[in-house]
């Protein structure tokens, strides 16, 4: 191509209008409507007018047959009498009769002379006539009266006695006009309605699309706080708007995550790196013995290892939050997993003179990522043990939530699992609880305990990956971290096999998750 212009140049505005999908849709809709009404109305027109025509023809034929019979019975006098009778009884005054002799002389009837145009007996004639001063149209048919002609060719009128029967169809003409007019008007109205409907649909369509376009373009320009307006009637457009809003919420969360991570890296990773650097530089400048140098280097390596650990935890949280790990989901029994983690931390608890009390059912079938759940519980126990005073007790509880009395299965076949860890430590203020899951957040009172401030962030990320919620509450004294995790339908069905008796289930879920325990199922001391 000789020019460097891209091919997708915006076309002139005359064409832009045609590119609008809503205009095309509504035009097609209007056109369909107009066309189908034309079809429908033509059918109506032909049907009505045709019926009237056929009716007139049938009446004329019947008349002619009856008159021919009279002629056969009594000759011309009877025929004349019958015609006069009929004319008298004809209230509408639309009948036309004429009988002429072979010479063309008038014998009887209400027409003065044989119309010159009527030459054949096998066709219908429509001729103008004037009756009572009014011009109209007459539908006519000619007949040979039997027994009077010597010879004739088919359809040709010859020298016998002839009968002309007809009807004045002025009324039919009026009716036809009326029908045509009203149908035409109706069509115009329908088309107008269709066009205005199309314009209306086009307008609604464009407004809806415009809201989407405006919101998305505002977002594209950086205003992430914009949301699609909801009408609130739950229709398709609302559903689309809701889906878009949900997507936006998620984008905001991800963006916040990225921003938080970069802030965290800037602030919290800089400290240990700076410390390591200082240690190394200090050693290089001031160390007098090999021993001192080695020690300084080892301390610096320790600090860098910390940086690596924090970095890995951050990446892992980010990865979990991005939802990339659902592939590892499987169905497993949660109870052995919980016991394993408890077993790992029980020794640590004992070392700090803290009791670890478990309250677990026999079995708890769960669908999720085994290793992540392990890690979440490990982090919760780690925290609880860290903040418990000597002599305290850390509780680990898991139970299926009773959604309704005696029922653990929700309407759509899913269940809810409550998993909580509580300690008797220093607890947390309300304000701190809200910030507890922020990366690197450490409550003021917890500053001097070891830790990175990432434990609960990871727990929350894991819980969110499983579609659950994390909740912190005061335990007086201490803190309770509770997780509400949905149990997938497939896991529930497995569980019902394990608990055939409903009694067992209600017994298992009777306790409130936050009440103090006196009846531990098992207790590791």
């Amino acid at each position, binding site marked *: 191509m000789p020019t460097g212009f891209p091919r997708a140049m915006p076309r002139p505005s005359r064409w832009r209008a045609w590119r609008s999908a809503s205009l095309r849709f509504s035009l097609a809709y209007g056109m369909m409507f107009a066309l189908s009404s034309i079809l429908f109305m033509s059918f109506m027109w032909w049907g009505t007018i045709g019926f009237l025509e056929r009716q007139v023809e049938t009446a004329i034929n019947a008349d002619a047959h009856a008159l021919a019979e009279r002629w056969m019975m009594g000759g011309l006098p009877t025929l004349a009498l019958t015609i006069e009778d009929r004319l008298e009884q004809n209230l509408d005054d639309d009948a036309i009769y004429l009988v002429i002799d072979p010479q063309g002389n008038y014998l009887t009837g209400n027409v003065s002379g044989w119309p010159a145009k009527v030459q054949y007996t096998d066709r219908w004639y429509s001729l103008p006539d004037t009756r009572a001063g009014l011009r109209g149209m007459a539908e006519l048919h000619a007949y040979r009266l039997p027994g009077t002609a010597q010879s004739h060719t088919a359809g040709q009128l010859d020298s016998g006695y002839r009968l002309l029967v007809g009807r004045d169809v002025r009324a039919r003409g009026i009716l036809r006009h009326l029908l045509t007019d009203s149908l035409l008007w109706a069509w115009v109205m329908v088309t107008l309605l269709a066009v205005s409907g199309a314009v209306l649909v086009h307008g609604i369509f464009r407004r809806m699309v415009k809201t989407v376009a405006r919101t998305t373009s505002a977002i594209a320009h950086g205003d992430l706080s914009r949301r699609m307006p909801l009408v609130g009637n739950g229709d398709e457009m609302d559903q689309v708007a809701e889906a878009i809003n949900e997507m936006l919420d998620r984008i905001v969360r991800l963006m916040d995550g990225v921003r938080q991570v970069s802030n965290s890296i800037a602030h919290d990773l800089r400290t240990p790196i700076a410390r390591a650097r200082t240690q190394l530089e200090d050693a290089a400048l001031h160390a007098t013995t090999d021993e001192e140098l080695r020690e300084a280097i080892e301390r610096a390596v320790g600090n860098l290892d910390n940086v690596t650990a924090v970095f890995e935890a951050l*990446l892992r949280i980010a990865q979990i939050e991005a939802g990339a790990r659902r592939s590892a989901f499987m169905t497993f029994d949660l109870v052995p997993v919980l016991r394993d983690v408890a077993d*790992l931390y029980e020794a640590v608890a004992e070392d700090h003179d803290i009791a670890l009390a478990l309250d677990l059912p026999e079995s708890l079938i769960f669908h999720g990522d085994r290793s992540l759940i392990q*890690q979440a519980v490990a982090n919760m126990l*780690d925290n609880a043990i860290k903040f418990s005073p000597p002599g305290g007790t850390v509780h680990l509880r898991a139970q299926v939530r009773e959604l309704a009395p005696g029922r653990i299965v929700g309407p759509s076949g899913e269940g809810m699992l409550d998993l909580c860890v509580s300690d008797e430590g220093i607890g947390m203020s309300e304000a701190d609880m809200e910030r507890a899951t922020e990366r690197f957040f450490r409550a003021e009172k917890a500053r001097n305990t*070891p830790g990175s401030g990432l434990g609960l962030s990871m727990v929350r990320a894991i819980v969110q990956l499983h579609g659950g919620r994390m909740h912190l509450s005061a335990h007086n004294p201490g803190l309770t971290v509770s997780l509400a995790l949905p149990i997938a339908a497939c896991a529930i069905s497995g569980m019902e096999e394990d608990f055939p008796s409903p009694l067992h289930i209600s017994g298992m879920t009777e306790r409130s998750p936050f009440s103090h325990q006196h009846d531990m199922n098992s207790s590791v001391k």
Partner: protein
Amino acid sequence: MHILVVEDDPTVRNFVAKGLKEAGHLVELTDNGKDGLFMAVSEKFDLIILDRMLPGGIDGVRLLETIRAQNNTTPVLLLSALADVDDRVQGLKAGGDDYVTKPFAFSELLARVEALGRRGRTEAAPQTKLEVADLEIDLLSRTVRRAGQKIDLQPREFRLLEYLTRHAGQVVTRTMLLEGVWDYHFDPQTNVIDVHVSRLRQKVDKPFGTPLIHTIRNAGYMLRAE
């Protein structure tokens, strides 16, 4: 052991080589996948340490798959900055025997190298009994005796002691214990392993005067006869 190190970063390569030589191993080095593959198929090694991202058209996983396709069963330790669970799984599926992520502590790498070298030699015959000095572990009845005296251990303590004994004379890192005994693949923030080992010591070492479980500074633990 005769060890091949395929690693393109010269700092890491020389660091690993120096450390392995100090530990008494014979080390050969290369910095790209093509030469690495050539050396791996033409010489007999006891162990290959393999970086995943390598220049020269053949990356670590490709090299590994190629030698495994030739029925070469040399233990391979993958050394990589790709630390995702999925990357780890991919590496192990391709035929890797162990996976160490960068950055790493040399003690960790060395412990794993020695464990892999040992595995190649001892896995041939399944053992029913482990013995170190006066410590006897019966793997069938799951009983432990020291100096003829029975020691009562909880199941997890038994597995911990079994793991240490199987790797007797080698350094075992905390991560190795967490993976090998608890099957956990994450880093618990507290030193939970130290607590478990110290409890095991209370039962296995304390009543008998001479300790078998030794702490190796900056590395981990080692079970050995004094």
